[in-house]
Each structure stands twice: as structure tokens, then as C-alpha cells.
């Protein structure tokens, strides 16, 4: 009878050789120092591992802090963070037996989880004071998406280390590795310049990104979610924040998972303002400004990304300059997918108890032209400015009517000194001619009406 040909099949032989090679090379990647002083020698020595961490400003005492180690490998960094007092979660995309073994030998409490970077969410792993993201970035096909996931779960600082293709002098770009171009490995996808990695960190939602070192094609970056503290004695006046709106819809509603930008309108007396000198915050997290435009003298518009990880609820926006105190806050709303947006027309609740005087409208303007005439363009908003002594107004406590029909107040802006502005859209099907606008609060009667003119433009 013929002998099965497996043993002589060279294709099969090669396959097996590959497996054997893999097994025999299965040593320890990180060295690990055991409690008795014994050291398991790995590919990277204890000194090199210490030097790698010492390159970053990581506090020596991490008592009470939560730390995430992404791409933990054998786990030296995780166990070092635990030694410093932190509660540690270690994450890797494949399970390493060496990590489990070291975990057992050290009697460690580190929480070890097998997850991809894409699977790291606040719902799944919670938030962390510090995140180690060492040697992972260049393995990602969507590196900026990976940094966004990291930013969304970082409360304070992420420490990022990556392969880079230059010493910091080259312009902002990346190389793309389709196959085994980098080290013959097919899981290396991108090689950024130092400038590109820094730009990614800022674009991912971190307020600040700093370069710690670059040497031998590796660079370390410290990415902070918070601005430096405001000056004790402001040298510049604080800005006045008018509004922060969705640049697609011009209202205060934002939607999780959509690629939306925030458009911030504010007044600042500072003449030579630049985007780099602005410090904008959402719920205390710093957000870098992408573009700054001067609209009129002292009137400014800034555009920025919605930072990742904002929960579906209200959030407070405020800003300052590098040398000023913070402005007033303005409230935006994050909606969960499928959550209903603004109502099409505002219901008119009866005044619960009239305890405040009627507001006084001092002007109603077309937001585009600053005149009282409207042509029916998409971006025209009815800006109603009024005075009231009533304190603590918010959007839900102001009711605006055009010709006795309630119109949703898209947002309310405090202009200071008891002055306020509401923005609403023109109702559909308005006839050409004059129309009445009036406003009240939940606790006041209606104001006297003001007049606007609707003149549909001719072609």
C-alpha cells in the first residue's frame, strides 16, 4: 500500500518549519524583575525599559490614578505603573502567555484584556488619567482614528511613542506601507514625520502635543487634554462668547459619530489674535482651534472639531486667550444616534407665574446682513436682541413668536449688561411684507412687537 506522502511533501514541510521557528523564537520580549530580585531576561533589558519610560514626564507616585497600557506585550510597563500605585488596565490585540506568567509571579492585580485599539471605548474600559500608547501607532491602518479612540478615554495625558521617518525637520506627511516595505512585516502600515505625528495628536482632540525626544527613528510625544493653567493676573481682557454652533446646521445640536465642526463666535479686544493663542474648552477639556477669522473689528469666528467621546448630554463651552481669564460659558447639546433633534415648531407653554417684567426688544436683525430685511436665503437667521433684568435665562426659558406663531429658539446668547440675543429661522411660507416679532420668558409677559420686512430677492 502506498505510504501517505505528507512527510515528503515539501510545501507541507515548509509550513511546519515556519511553525517550529515561531515556537523556538518564543522568548520573552520585555525583561521582568521578580520580587526576589531575580530577572527574567528578555529581548529588551530592564535598563532600556526604564530609559524608555523615563523619557516621558510620568509621575513617580500614581496612587489613586487609573492607567491604561495599550499594546502591553510582556507587560513591563503595566507592572511598573502598578508598582507606582496606579490601578492598571493592560490591553493587547493577542494574548501573550508571558504576560500571564509574569502577572502570576508578581502577584499583580493588573486587569489584562484582549482588545483592538478600535474596540477601546469609554463604555467598555472607562476613562483613564494616563494612557501609555507605546509602539502601536505605526501598526494602524487608520492612525488618526486610533489616536481619537485614545483621546476619548484619556482624562489628563497620553504618552505616545512611534516609529517616525525623520528627525523633526521634514514637512507634515506620512509614508504608507502596503505590504512588507517596513521591516518585512505586513502589520506596519504607516510612517509619519515628527510634524505629522504631532499634528495627528492635536487633530485627534488633544489640546496640546509636545515632542519629548526623537532618536533612531523613534519619537516620544506627550499629549495633554488640558490647557496650561490660566494666568494668575490676566494681561488681556476676557473674551465675550456669543455662541458655539454646528457649522452644518447653525444650531447648538451635535450628533455622536458624525464628523461635525463647531463654529464659535466671540468678541475680543485683542488686536493680533492668532489661533495658537486661543484656549477653548469643552467641559474643561482643551480643544485646539483649526481656523480663526476676523469678521469685523473685535468680532471673531473660530472653527474647531468636536472632540471625541462627548457623552449625549449638555456641554459647556468657554474660551480665553493665552493671557486672559475665561469668557462666559455657552451650552451645546450632544445627541445620541437616533435621538430626536429640535422640534419643528416650539410649543407655547403658559406663563407659570408672571413674576418678571416684559423684555424690551431693542433690535431684530438679519444675521447675514445686519439689516431688518430678509430675502429668504438658507443662512439667514432672525437675531432678536432684547433687555431683561431676569437672571439665569437659558434657551428653554425664552419663547419667540413671529406673527403669533412660536418659532424654535436655536440658541440664546448673553451679550452682557442684561442684553440677550436669540437666533431663530424664518418660518416657511412667509408672505412678502412686514411681520411682527415678539419675545417673552417663562416668567414674563410678551414684549412689545418689533417689525421685520420679508422681501424675496429677484433673480
Amino acid at each position: 500500500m502506498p505510504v501517505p506522502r505528507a512527510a515528503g511533501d515539501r510545501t507541507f514541510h515548509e509550513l511546519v518549519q515556519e511553525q517550529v521557528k515561531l515556537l523556538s523564537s518564543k522568548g520573552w520580549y520585555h525583561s521582568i524583575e521578580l520580587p526576589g530580585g531575580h530577572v527574567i531576561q528578555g529581548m529588551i533589558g530592564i535598563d532600556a525599559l526604564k530609559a524608555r519610560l523615563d523619557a516621558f514626564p510620568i509621575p513617580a507616585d500614581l496612587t489613586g490614578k487609573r492607567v491604561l497600557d495599550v499594546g502591553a506585550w510582556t507587560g513591563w510597563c503595566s507592572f511598573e505603573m502598578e508598582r507606582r500605585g496606579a490601578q492598571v488596565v493592560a490591553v493587547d490585540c493577542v494574548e501573550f502567555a508571558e504576560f500571564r506568567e509574569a502577572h502570576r509571579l508578581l502577584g499583580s492585580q493588573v486587569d489584562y484584556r484582549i482588545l483592538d485599539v478600535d474596540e477601546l471605548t469609554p463604555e467598555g474600559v472607562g476613562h483613564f488619567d494616563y494612557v501609555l500608547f507605546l509602539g502601536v501607532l505605526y501598526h494602524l491602518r487608520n492612525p488618526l482614528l486610533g489616536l481619537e479612540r485614545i483621546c476619548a478615554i484619556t482624562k489628563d495625558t497620553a504618552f505616545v511613542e512611534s516609529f517616525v521617518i525623520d528627525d523633526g525637520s521634514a514637512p507634515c506627511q506620512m509614508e504608507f506601507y502596503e505590504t512588507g516595505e517596513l521591516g518585512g512585516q505586513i502589520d506596519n502600515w504607516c510612517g509619519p514625520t515628527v510634524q505629522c505625528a504631532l499634528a495627528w495628536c492635536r487633530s485627534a482632540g488633544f489640546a496640546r502635543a509636545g515632542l519629548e525626544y526623537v532618536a533612531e527613528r523613534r519619537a516620544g510625544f506627550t499629549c495633554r487634554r488640558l490647557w496650561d493653567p490660566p494666568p494668575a493676573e490676566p494681561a488681556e481682557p476676557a473674551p465675550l462668547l456669543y455662541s458655539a454652533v454646528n457649522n452644518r446646521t447653525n444650531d447648538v445640536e451635535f450628533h455622536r459619530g458624525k464628523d461635525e465642526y463647531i463654529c464659535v463666535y466671540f468678541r475680543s479686544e485683542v488686536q493680533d489674535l492668532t489661533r495658537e493663542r486661543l484656549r477653548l474648552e469643552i467641559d474643561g477639556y482643551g480643544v485646539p482651534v483649526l481656523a480663526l477669522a476676523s469678521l469685523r473689528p473685535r468680532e471673531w469666528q473660530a472653527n474647531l472639531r468636536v472632540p471625541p467621546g462627548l457623552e449625549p448630554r449638555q456641554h459647556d463651552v468657554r474660551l480665553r486667550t493665552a493671557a486672559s481669564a475665561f469668557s462666559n460659558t455657552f451650552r451645546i447639546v450632544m445627541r445620541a444616534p437616533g435621538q430626536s433633534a429640535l422640534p419643528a415648531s416650539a410649543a407655547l407653554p403658559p406663563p407659570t407665574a408672571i413674576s418678571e417684567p416684559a423684555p424690551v426688544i431693542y433690535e431684530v436683525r438679519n444675521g447675514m446682513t445686519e439689516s431688518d430685511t430678509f430675502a429668504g436665503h438658507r443662512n439667514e437667521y432672525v437675531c432678536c436682541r432684547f433687555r431683561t433684568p431676569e437672571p439665569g435665562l437659558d434657551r428653554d426659558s425664552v419663547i419667540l413668536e413671529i406673527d403669533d406663531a412660536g418659532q424654535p429658539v436655536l440658541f440664546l446668547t448673553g451679550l452682557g449688561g442684561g442684553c440677550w440675543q436669540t437666533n431663530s429661522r424664518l418660518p416657511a411660507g412667509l408672505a412678502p411684507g412686514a411681520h411682527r416679532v415678539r419675545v417673552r420668558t417663562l416668567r414674563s409677559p410678551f414684549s412689545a412687537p418689533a417689525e421685520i420686512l420679508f422681501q424675496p430677492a429677484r433673480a
Partner: protein
Amino acid sequence: MPVVDPNQQKLEHLERLGWYHSMELPDGRVIPGYQGLDVLRNRVAQFHIPADLRGRRVLDIGAWDGWFSFEMERRGAEVVAVDSTSFERFRVARELLGSKVEYRIDDVCRLTPAKVGYFDIVLFLGVLYHLKHPMLALERVCELSTGIVCVESFVTDDGSDLSAKPAMEFYETTELCGQFDNWVGPNVPCLLAMCRSAGFAGVHLESVIDHRAHVTCYRRWPEAAEAADPPPSITSVENASTRDRVFSSTNDDYVAIWFKSPRPDLTAADVFPRIGPYGSHPVFLQSTGGDGWHINCKLPPGLAPGWHEATLRTAHSPWANPVRIAVDLSPDERRQPPAAEPAEIRIAIVTDGKTWERNLVHTGIHSCISLWVVGLPQDAAKDSIAIWLAGDDLPAVFLSEPDAQGLRQVNAMLPTGAQPGECQVAVRFGSAASAPVPVRLV
């Protein structure tokens, strides 16, 4: 009395809105836009889109005013148009044209087959460089397409040096044209590499005009022009990282295929792997000695859960013996024995090459399973025979001539990760299969 055109007032309103695409109305009037009709026609003419699209589904991503959507509909296609914000101009043009194009507001990275279905042709024009995650978007688009995707993007070069290093500029703020919604600028080699990496089989550069590259991405390989060579013979198919035959559409899995080909000088450009209907190009190729070869390719996106045939051909050969792999199936689903057509095939003996004990197979390095089978046709070739073992389809690597009793020996390699235990084994020949019999792996 002059006849009042009921649409005239609406048209005047529309023109005031400021059009990007020009729009030709049924009565021949043209709403002039920033891009003239000749420019728009030239953009679409960069791609090989059939003039007759009856019965085809077309997706237009980033439809803007909708000229491309309405042009595809005019050619007979069922069209879905997607944009990130709603444009009044699109809606009114749709009404004036009496169009049935479905208009959806969504971000490209959130489109799924469950939401919008699959498309024969996807237009992805002028969108890529506005995205922060261009690879992710290309992967999503690949998943939605069953035929071709037409990609038009800003590029940083003129495409004259395709051997340049694939590189992509990143625009943190307003570096590109003062717009803060421009995020990336790939060079042409990078754009082509990203399209290939997204899971397309073939990627072809059509033209580069004024820093706009036009790339056609194909999900399927053509048949070989002339099949002068014999078909390659596949000996094993595995998941390249887990080394089993279990594949997941969400895990970024790669398919490792071992095969034999008499061609001595194969390169990755000469090998055309196919999983289900979709082509996938090799990201890795090496000779394993003699006529043996090993390639890795990405599991193509968009495969439905179930069994799919993995095969390949070379530039001048027909397709190799297909090997079935399981995508997104649970262990229980995988262990369902193959549905057998009535056939006379029967397994007489199960053993291995080490102990020759009946119904017992030793696992480990160099292990194989050996069946003696009755009822295979005289002209059966080993390439049409597979051994089904506990949910794995193992291609036959050896088939003997019939002995005096009409028994034929069929051998297959055990999977690298085969685990000891009781399981079932059957033999498959084309669409026929034997009844499963028990075997013990030790």
C-alpha cells in the same frame, strides 16, 4: 397673454442659491453652475461606465447638487445618492427632473450594506481628501460594492512617477486651499496602494488632470486571456494569523494559500486569488521549494456569513481546485456535515500514516488523514476531492488508482491547529458527499 411657467419662479429661486453643478432640465434649459456640463461630462468620462445601466444599482457618495446621480439614473440605473449635509438644490433638481433617486444624509464611514445594500457601481468623486480616515472610508466603500468603484481625489503629484514612495500629506488646519475640511493629500502611488489595501482585487489609474487622479477599483478578476498553463493545485488554506480555517469579516483577517504551480518565476502580480466572487491581490508571495508557493491575501470585505470557495489562478491558467472556508460561522454551524446529493460514495476505512489504526488519527507535525473510499468515478481527479473534517474542508493532496476491490486512497494534511477529540469525517466530490463517519483525533 403670456404663458406663465409655473417653474419659473422656482428656477429663479434656485439660481439665487448658487449652483456648483450645472443642471440640464428636461426642456433643454440649463441652470448654470460653477462647473459647466462639459466639465461634469469630462469628469465622468474618465471612467469606463456603461452607457446602458438598466438593472444596475449605483451609489453616488458626496452627491452635492446631484448631476452624477441624475446622469446615472438617465442611463437606466437605480441610484442612491448620499451626502453629509442636505442640499436644497439637490431636492429641487430632483423634483424638476422627476427623478426617483433615493437621497440619504449620512457620513461615508457609517454606510453599511445593512443600511443601503450592495451596488454594482459606486461613484466616490471628490470626497477622499476631505476625510480624516481615508483608509477606513475606502474599506467601507469596498464592502458596499460588488463590481467597480470610481475614485476621484486630489493628489499632490501628476502621477508621472509611479515608482515614487507612497506618501500622504496631512493638513491639520487650512493648509490646502484655505479650507479646514481638507485633511489629506496622497500622491498617486499612495492613493493606488490605499485602494489595493482596502480590499479591492485590481486597481487601475485612468488619468491625472490638474492634481485630480481618477482610479477604477475592481472587486473581481477577469478570466485569464488565454489559459495555456495547467491550473494550480491548492494544498492548504488557512487563516494567516490564527492558523485555523475560521474567518471573521470584522477581524481584518488574511487568507494564507499554499499551492503548486509549474511556473518557476511567479511574482505577486501573476497570482489572482479569489474568495467567493471577489478577487483579492496577494500581499505576500514566497516559494516554498520545488513547485510549491505560499501567498497571503486579505479576506475581501462584504462576504455574507457562510461557506465561500477560495481559489486562485495564474496569469495564463484556469482556476485551481476550490477549497471551502467558513466566514462568520459559529463552531456549531461549521460542524454541520455537508449536504450530500445522493451518491454511491462511501468511506470504508479511516486512518493515518503513522499507526494504521482504524478510525484513529494522530495530530501533530507532519500529520495527515487517510481515507479509503468506494464509489469515486474512474476519471475523478484529486483537485475535485476534499476531506471534510469537523467543519474544515481539507483539499486532497493524494489520490491513488483503484485497488482490486475498487478502493481508492485519499490523503489530506491535518490543519496545523487540529485538536484531539471525537469528530466526524466525510469525503466530498464536486457537489456530492459521502455519509459522515466517526473518527478520533489523538
